[in-house]
């Protein structure tokens, strides 16, 4: 266990090193002046140039520059944006909670839908159920996410008018932002329209989280189905059945405990994909998260902002992957003896 833990820690260290080296090298890869992409200042006069490059250690070797870069990242000095001239560190961490909120609700959503469907599909009593659930999941898997979003907007927002098309909260509610997680902020605020604002936030959340949940749901359905089939065929489940346990007892005591292990692993493996899909969802629903912010930065060639966004998103993906991996390891002792490249 400790051995595994230390291996994961060393992996985390190596990954952090790799990502920071990559983000640092972006300074040299972007088609702009190295100093401006590091500092975010566009028009640097000749007198200032020397002083600023002194601050960024540009006249010293690349290694010194790299360590200065790490130091600046730890201090929270991520440069300023080309477009707005404000600190990137503050911008990123202002928009990040919206993305995390969206991703977590979508994962929660898909967990609730996918596990029962997967268990149902794995039962051999109803083969037609299995087939229709599988067909549904392969259709959901093949649906381009933005097209699904457009279809849902057409039906539920334009046609039926149930849900709003964009944004996180209607403009008539003013919620003071403390943590950035909207639902939590609403609950903690002391305004007199709390309940209405909460319902409005939920209505805004419904379509984006449903769209985002489509992909993890299909993946989870297939994983759950397969692993439940495998578990239900094992000898210990057959023995328990012979002992006279009812189906629900079988599921609760033996089936789900073992069958849901690969699901945790799958969640970890697909968390990165969910985050990238969240970026696309944000663009469509004008959700003010890190994804739409990064896409804007790419459009505007805002190189310091691209760097900051990449650093945060990849950092988030890596940390989440390793956390899921550790979680999996805590639940499944057999998983601790494993090789590389299986994250």
């Amino acid at each position, binding site marked *: 266990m400790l051995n595994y833990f230390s291996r994961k820690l060393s992996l985390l260290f190596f*990954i952090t090193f790799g990502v920071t080296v990559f983000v640092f090298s972006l300074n040299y890869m972007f088609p702009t002046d190295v100093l401006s992409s590091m500092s975010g200042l566009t028009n640097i006069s000749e007198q200032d140039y020397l002083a600023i490059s002194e601050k960024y250690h540009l006249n010293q070797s690349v290694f010194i520059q790299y360590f200065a870069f790490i130091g600046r990242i730890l201090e929270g000095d991520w440069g300023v944006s080309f477009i707005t001239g404000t600190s990137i560190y503050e911008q990123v961490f202002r928009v990040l909670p919206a993305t995390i909120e969206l991703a977590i609700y979508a994962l929660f959503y898909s967990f609730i839908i996918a596990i029962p469907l997967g268990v149902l599909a794995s039962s051999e009593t109803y083969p037609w159920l299995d087939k229709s659930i599988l067909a549904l999941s*392969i259709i959901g898997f093949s649906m381009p996410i933005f097209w699904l979003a*457009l279809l849902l907007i057409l039906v539920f927002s334009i046609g039926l008018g149930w849900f709003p098309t964009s944004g996180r909260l209607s403009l008539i509610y003013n919620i003071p932002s403390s943590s950035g997680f909207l639902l939590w902020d609403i609950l903690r605020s002391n305004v007199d329209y709390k309940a209405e604002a909460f319902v409005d936030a939920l209505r805004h959340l419904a379509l984006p989280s449903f769209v985002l949940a489509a992909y993890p749901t299909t993946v989870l359905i297939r994983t759950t189905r397969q692993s439940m089939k495998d578990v239900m065929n094992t000898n210990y489940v057959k023995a328990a059945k012979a002992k006279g346990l009812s189906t629900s007892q079988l599921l609760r005591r033996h089936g789900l405990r073992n069958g849901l292990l690969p699901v945790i692993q799958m969640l970890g493996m697909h968390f990165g994909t969910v985050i990238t899909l969240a970026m*696309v969802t944000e663009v469509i629903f004008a959700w003010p998260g890190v994804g739409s912010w990064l896409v804007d930065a790419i459009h505007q060639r805002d190189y310091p902002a691209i760097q900051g966004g990449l650093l945060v998103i990849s950092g988030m993906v890596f940390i989440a992957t390793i956390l899921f991996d550790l979680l999996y390891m805590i639940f499944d002792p057999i998983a601790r003896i494993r090789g590389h490249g299986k994250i």
Partner: protein
Amino acid sequence: MVKFRFFSSPNNSSPLRQLWRLFQRNHFALVASWVFIFMILMAILGPLLAPYSPYMQQADMLLVPPSWDVNGYIQSPFGTDALGRDILSRILAGISYSFGLAIVAVALALSLGLLIGTLAGFSKGIRASFLNHILDIALTMPSLLIAIVIVAILGPGIANSFWAVVLAMLPQFIHHIRTEVADLLDKDFVIAYRLDGANNWQVFRFALVPNMIENIVIFSTMAISAAVLDIVVLGFIGIGAQSPEPELGTMIADSLGVFYLSPWTVMLPGITLFLCILSTNIVGDGLRHALKERRLQ
């Protein structure tokens, strides 16, 4: 499982032919494979079959509905978009952009991955461990995110998004092939072949490739659908193919403004895209099932 097969003769056809025979039993997958082949044909021939140029704008035919609508014309069977461009021609060209380019990207990533993955599978010790760490990093990053990063460096454009998709898929291919090669090299029949005096190239050509090919085909099929999605999403969020180009995702993004007025400008490219990805996925799934069955026999 039927244990005694009195009426079946021993099957001596090649593994790929057996795979195909088992695949044909699944009718959904068979139909999907016809759609898949049709889409490939369209990707090759589409630009030749298109009645108009995908860029030609007809000022007197703006937002004409499809021909099955009362107000539609037969000149443009799928209608026209907000600039009077024929949607059928644009979709035909778009298939070769989105679907055709994805297949080329997968083929390129596959050949590069086969090269690097095999070399890595043969290597041992510190080189292999170094590659493992690099792969650990690259595999954690989702391919779309890598593609977005690469496009951010290279700048928007269809050519850049093509390279981005190739590079983004490469780690998966390398990892897949490397594990496969490393597994196979430990097998007894490969060791026996080596003891017969086969060199590395012969081991690769006559022992590894025949045993890997099915898995590679299935993996590539799944990779095609991922590649189509990546290219299209890049086009849709505006950092892939740029506006006048008839790439399906870009077309959908372009028509968003008139979506509520004339939904066919978004629906028809979307349905085409959906058919491409769905058929690819079903074919991949069918192949995987067929392979599983063949291994059981």
